[in-house]
């Protein structure tokens, strides 16, 4: 996707960043990102992906908006009962005409996936699907106001190798926006400059991030990805 003058003006602050630049911004514009999970905790991340100029964002969350969602600005009371993916698409599409937001279609294959799943089982399943589809992915593990973000570029150790071994954390609190935005940031950098991306895990504990490289677990099936 070539940048036209309107997009150059819109993304001017990103175009001068080393590692993004014109080529990176064009990669963002050509990307099709599947977003697994459209809860209120995921919304800040989806919003920043939209503002960054990702070409297409497919929201995969057919669950209905529930009473727990309805305190959030994106889910006003009249949306209770509607599929989350449709409500999120309608609310965020207005934020940028350069991005196409749609509910995810089962047969569609993305170029990257970000997982804001509400359960550990759903996160593992969504990450494994992305690995099998051979697309880079970023997975969020909620834990109150913090949690972790695991980044899985192509051929890196998979999410199962990098995930928490202690099991699921606490549900996301109202202050979980930082983790959601961090996941968007990781995906944007991964898409803009794939050659520089490394498998890593960022833990956010009481507002302080710490990073470590992920390591492949012995015997993990993802070792076969290196050969691909």
């Amino acid at each position, binding site marked *: 996707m070539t940048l036209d003058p309107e997009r150059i*003006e*819109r*993304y*001017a*602050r*990103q*175009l*001068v*960043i*080393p*590692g*993004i630049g014109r080529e990176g911004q064009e990669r963002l514009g050509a990307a099709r990102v599947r977003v697994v999970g459209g809860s209120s905790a995921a919304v*800040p*991340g989806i*919003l*920043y*992906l939209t*503002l*960054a*100029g990702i070409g297409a964002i497919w929201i995969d969350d057919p669950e209905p908006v529930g009473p727990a969602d309805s305190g959030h*600005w994106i889910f006003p009371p009249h949306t209770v009962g509607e599929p989350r993916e449709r409500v999120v698409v309608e609310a965020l599409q*207005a*934020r*940028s*005409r350069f991005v196409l937001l749609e509910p995810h279609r089962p047969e569609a294959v993305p170029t990257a996936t970000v997982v804001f799943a509400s359960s550990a089982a759903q996160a593992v399943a969504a990450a494994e699907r992305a690995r099998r589809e051979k697309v880079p992915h970023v997975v969020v593990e909620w834990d109150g*106001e913090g949690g972790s973000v695991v980044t899985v570029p192509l051929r890196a150790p998979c999410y199962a190798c990098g995930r928490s071994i202690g099991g699921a954390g606490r549900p996301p609190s109202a*202050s979980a*926006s*930082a983790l*959601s*935005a*961090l996941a*968007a*940031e*990781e995906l*944007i*950098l991964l898409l803009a400059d794939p050659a*520089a991306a490394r498998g*890593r895990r*960022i833990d956010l504990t*009481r*507002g*302080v*991030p*710490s*990073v470590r490289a992920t390591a492949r677990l012995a015997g993990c099936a993802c070792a076969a990805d290196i050969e691909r």
Partner: protein
Amino acid sequence: MDADAVETSNLNRQPLFGEADVGARKAAVAAARLRALRPDARIEPLDERFAAANAAALVRGVDVVIDGSDDFATKFLANDVAVAARKPLVHGGILRTTAQLLTVVPGPAGCLRCLFEDPPPPDAMPSNADAGVLGALAGFAGALMAAEALRLLAGERGAYVGRLLTFEARTARARLVMIRRREGCPACRTPAPVA
């Protein structure tokens, strides 16, 4: 509080504004959008600069100061006025792919001037326009600042009190620098050592 108008180049990172707002005053648009989201909140737009002439009066009337300004002179002014008024300050800044956070509260922990003493000369640092800003990183830093302000308002200890957090997005490396009150700091007015 903001004395600028919305520009197209803001829209990669400032989610309160949309394309239709370009050219409009930021304070008014932000207040209107926040009121629509939270009709029960009291929100007052201030379309003016935070400057030496109005800073003390503005800070006197609040419980916590959140500094998300984009120039060093304003950041140091916010620090000085908050320290003088003994009000907590949540300081945050972002440039290119690096974010920085610090909380200043009355007590033994240091302030921005204890660490840096003075703002850099005007031409020593690149502007946002020259260096760029990673939009999602601004969201990350802004969310951390909001969570910190909520901690302080709830009576908890802030996560960045007396320690400057620097986070570089490309490497994802974070660094914490401990800041104690510096003798001779002109903001804290800690006595200088006797020669």
